[in-house]
């Protein structure tokens, strides 16, 4: 018996710990659909904030979209913005408290449709903020309508026969636009569909947070994501569909890092 106990104690030593719930993530049950990318990105944020030990110095901005309740899960100060306006809030917060880390967390409808102006101008001014951009190609929260990022042929409740370019225009690759603005410093497109991808995304977000304190411009981490509910697929099927159909349009990797 004592033999077993001591061997368990041998095992549960801090240096053997490979996984634990980040302390910045609280115990509230998440409202996200099982398989949704939002939950994974929340966990990454919690890990990064914990590891960087910046919990007391970070302010998050939640969007209108599925992540509207982001503030319920991360144990940090948060503001909830009007639809699309998160970069405006972040601008003011960072300008008024430059010593704080300020990040927005936005969906593609929030960032690339209604909030296009705020996104472009915050980036163009080179606000020293972090923008976490969840591109799932659809309006998740309102029940699966077409987003500016919905790819050609992809079905949604407002393009039930698939996005038709002549009717709906082209999918908006806003990140490619942001790269060209002088104010952006770090622009990257990542995903969280495999553990390798999750690790890369974590590094990217970490870098963005560090950069935001160096006063050299805006950092944007786009995360090409799944919305299995909105897409009407299984979580696994959604991952496969994303790799096959979205990655060719939204190519993964760093777009700018200066």
């Amino acid at each position, binding site marked *: 018996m004592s033999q077993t106990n001591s061997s368990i104690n041998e095992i549960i030593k801090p240096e053997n710990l490979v996984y634990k719930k980040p302390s910045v993530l609280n115990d509230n049950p998440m409202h996200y659909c099982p398989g949704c990318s939002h939950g994974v990105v929340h966990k990454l944020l919690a890990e990064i904030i914990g590891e960087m030990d910046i919990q007391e110095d970070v302010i998050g901005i939640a969007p209108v979209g599925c992540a509207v309740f982001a503030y319920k899960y991360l144990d940090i100060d948060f*503001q909830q913005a*009007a639809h699309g306006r998160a970069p405006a809030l972040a601008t003011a917060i960072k300008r*008024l*408290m430059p010593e*704080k880390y300020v990040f927005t967390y936005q969906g593609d409808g929030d960032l690339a449709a209604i909030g296009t102006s705020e996104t472009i*101008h915050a980036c163009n001014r080179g606000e020293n903020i972090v923008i976490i951009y969840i591109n799932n190609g659809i309006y998740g929260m309102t029940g699966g309508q077409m987003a500016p990022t919905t790819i050609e042929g992809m079905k949604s409740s407002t393009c039930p026969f698939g996005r038709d370019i002549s009717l709906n225009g082209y999918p908006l690759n806003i990140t490619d636009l942001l790269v060209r603005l002088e104010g952006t410093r770090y622009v990257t497109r990542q995903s969280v569909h495999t553990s390798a991808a999750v690790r890369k995304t974590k590094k990217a977000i970490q870098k963005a947070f560090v950069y935001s304190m160096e006063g050299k411009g805006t950092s944007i981490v786009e995360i090409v994501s799944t919305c299995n509910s909105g897409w009407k697929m299984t979580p696994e099927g959604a991952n496969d569909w994303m790799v096959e159909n979205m990655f060719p349009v939204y190519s993964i990797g760093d777009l700018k890092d200066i």
Partner: protein
Amino acid sequence: MSEEIELMKGNEAIAQAAIRCGCDGYFGYPITPQSEILETLMAEQPWKTTGMVVMQVESEIAAINMVYGGAGCGKKVMTSSSSPGISLKQEGISYIAGAELPCLVVNVMRGGPGLGTIQPSQSDYFQAVKGGGHGDYNMIVLAPASVQEMADFTVLGFDLAFNYLNPVMILADGVIGQMMEKIVLPPFSPRKTAEEIKKLYPWATYGKSKDRKPNVISSLEIDSVEMEQRNLKFQRKFQLMEENEIRYEEFETTDAEYILVAFGSTARICQKSVEIAREQGIKLGLIRPITLWPFPTPILYQYTSKVKHFFSIEMNAGQMVEDIRLAVNGKAKVDFYGRLGGIVPSPIEVVEFVKSKIA
């Protein structure tokens, strides 16, 4: 120390008063007839002296949402615009009211609807006092009638906003914004330090310290039962404002048989009308609501015991007149005279109108 008397425009007075009262941030977008507020702030460069942030931003929508962000951090922040720009800010103002944040919004009105005219008007009265944005909310609306009041109400507006944690609006018009008068600027008071903000506004998002739960600035509540409670709390707050914050001015009302009711620059004109009427033997008086919300309803009602005829004089098609009718509640006659499209009525015109109605 002797008082510093200076000559300046109403818009400049707002900018100077903002710097002096320890404002932390101004966010705006140019529009006539109020651009001097942003121009003055940019010329003064207060970020080099008091540390105040001043930004010309991409739109009125961005500006009001920056105000939300700043106010959420417990900062003293403001924006200004004129009618079309104020329309754009309405969603943001509603969010600010819903999240119970303090801020100052200045509307130097011009004529509408649409792009309308850059000439002065008072046609945003309804928008200002009846909500403007969506949802059940009110805000204190201060109507300055002089350049001095543009400065004074900037200071007062912030105080009221922080007292009630609610947006406050200064509703001026192009006349007050553009005219020059001698004024005494408010004394300098420093911006609040980070430590003071933590103590005074424990709800603010300045970074979660170890000894407390996260602070969240939000107007969202999915649970209807909770949302009803939250709304009832707002209503109690608005009731407190109605009980405590009514401001008005009387002119020649003691023996008045007829009373003009007018605000802002129209009240200045009506003061002259009262003098002219009295020279002609007509016992005319003037009540100038200073707070358009809360409206001086009880004061007007009290006057109905001796005054049976009120006149609402406005630079619009008849907006405040509805509140006067509600206030007198059928106990007195209420007539309306207004000019539209940016035309300012003359004192004589008003007297002639009164005479035509009492003849």
